[in-house]
């Protein structure tokens, strides 16, 4: 979190994480297509010729002033390809909250778990863990035929009982509930940290 006192801006960074092709970019595309133009930046996507995210996607959302402060949400995706490790680390710099997008297709369960472990590794490098960090799970591609049941995915991925959402990102289903929840967790987390800091200094 970054607070710019002169401009009364609060910058919060949210990163969509998940294996390659799970639907991270689709989430941002939907958000971008459904927000009032005055409240959003352009959607930047850095892709290869084959339409794969090579660096990140970026979108900034605003909601105007709240109690004389202006929250700005900087939303990023990471590339899922295994060998883009450094890029994921760069995008996670200063992250405040994460949406982990899991691909619900049965054959993707190993990739989901590997990517979740990869995320934990990066968080630890920043002095955080999946247990004490605001994040939510999105089970995407619920429209496909060969998907795992929610109960199964829950046991395979949701070890810490974080909020989870079913989604069909390409149709926009579940996209807004997911982002609203992560924003809520991020704000509560900031609040908790401020209170802890206050107690420690008192």
């Amino acid at each position, binding site marked *: *979190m*970054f*607070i*710019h*006192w*002169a*401009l009364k801006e*609060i*910058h919060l*960074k949210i990163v969509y994480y998940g294996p390659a092709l799970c639907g991270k970019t689709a989430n941002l595309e939907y*958000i971008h297509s*459904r*927000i*009032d133009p005055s*409240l959003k*930046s*352009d959607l*930047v996507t*850095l892709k290869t010729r084959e339409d794969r995210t090579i*660096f*990140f996607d*970026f979108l*900034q*959302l605003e*909601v*105007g002033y*709240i*109690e004389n*402060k202006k*929250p700005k949400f*900087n939303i*990023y995706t990471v590339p899922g390809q295994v060998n883009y490790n*450094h*890029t994921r680390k*760069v*995008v996670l*710099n*200063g*992250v405040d909250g994460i949406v982990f997008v899991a691909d619900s297709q049965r054959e993707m369960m190993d990739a989901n778990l590997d990517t979740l472990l990869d995320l934990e590794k990066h968080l630890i490098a*920043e*002095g*955080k863990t999946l247990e004490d960090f605001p994040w939510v799970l999105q089970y995407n591609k619920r429209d496909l035929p060969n998907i795992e049941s929610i109960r199964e995915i829950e046991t395979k991925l949701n070890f810490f009982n974080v909020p989870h959402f079913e989604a069909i990102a390409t149709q*926009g289903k579940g996209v*807004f509930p997911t*982002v*609203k929840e992560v*924003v*809520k967790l991020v*704000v*509560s987390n*900031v*609040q908790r*940290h*401020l209170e802890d*800091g*206050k107690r420690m*200094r008192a």
Partner: protein
Amino acid sequence: MQYSKGMSENQYNQILSCLTKLIQKLRLNAVFLVDGAGRILAEKLSESEKFDTTILAPLASGSYSAANEMARQLGEKSNVKMMLYENDNKNVFISSVTSDVFLVIVFETGVALGMVRLFAKRTLLQLQPILLDDSANQFDELFDQHFQGLLNEKLNQSFLDE
């Protein structure tokens, strides 16, 4: 890693005055200060310019980080000191200010690169002590108990499918 960071009004005004001097001195198109998280800390655009720094900041931050990683792969121990993008009309010069903050300068191809480097260097030296002051990172109050509810309401209004 520090949990929250902030910039005070006083810091911001000092930074802005450095950037303003720089842009006027060399008739630059734009100067802005960006951090490693892709956030824009301060910006100054010439009057005729109006590109979207919201987008440029994460792109500059990403390319600077990529350059740093390239240097690391080559066996370098410290961060990239400067990089230059040469274009047909506007060049971009990026130089590191602190380990997590860098300065981006956009200038017409007619402006001498040597001048840009010289004045960028001076500006860095002015900016470094200002950025060192971390008193604005400590604060107790940011949101009150209504904030969460109000934010949620605003989000509901902004999301047009609900």
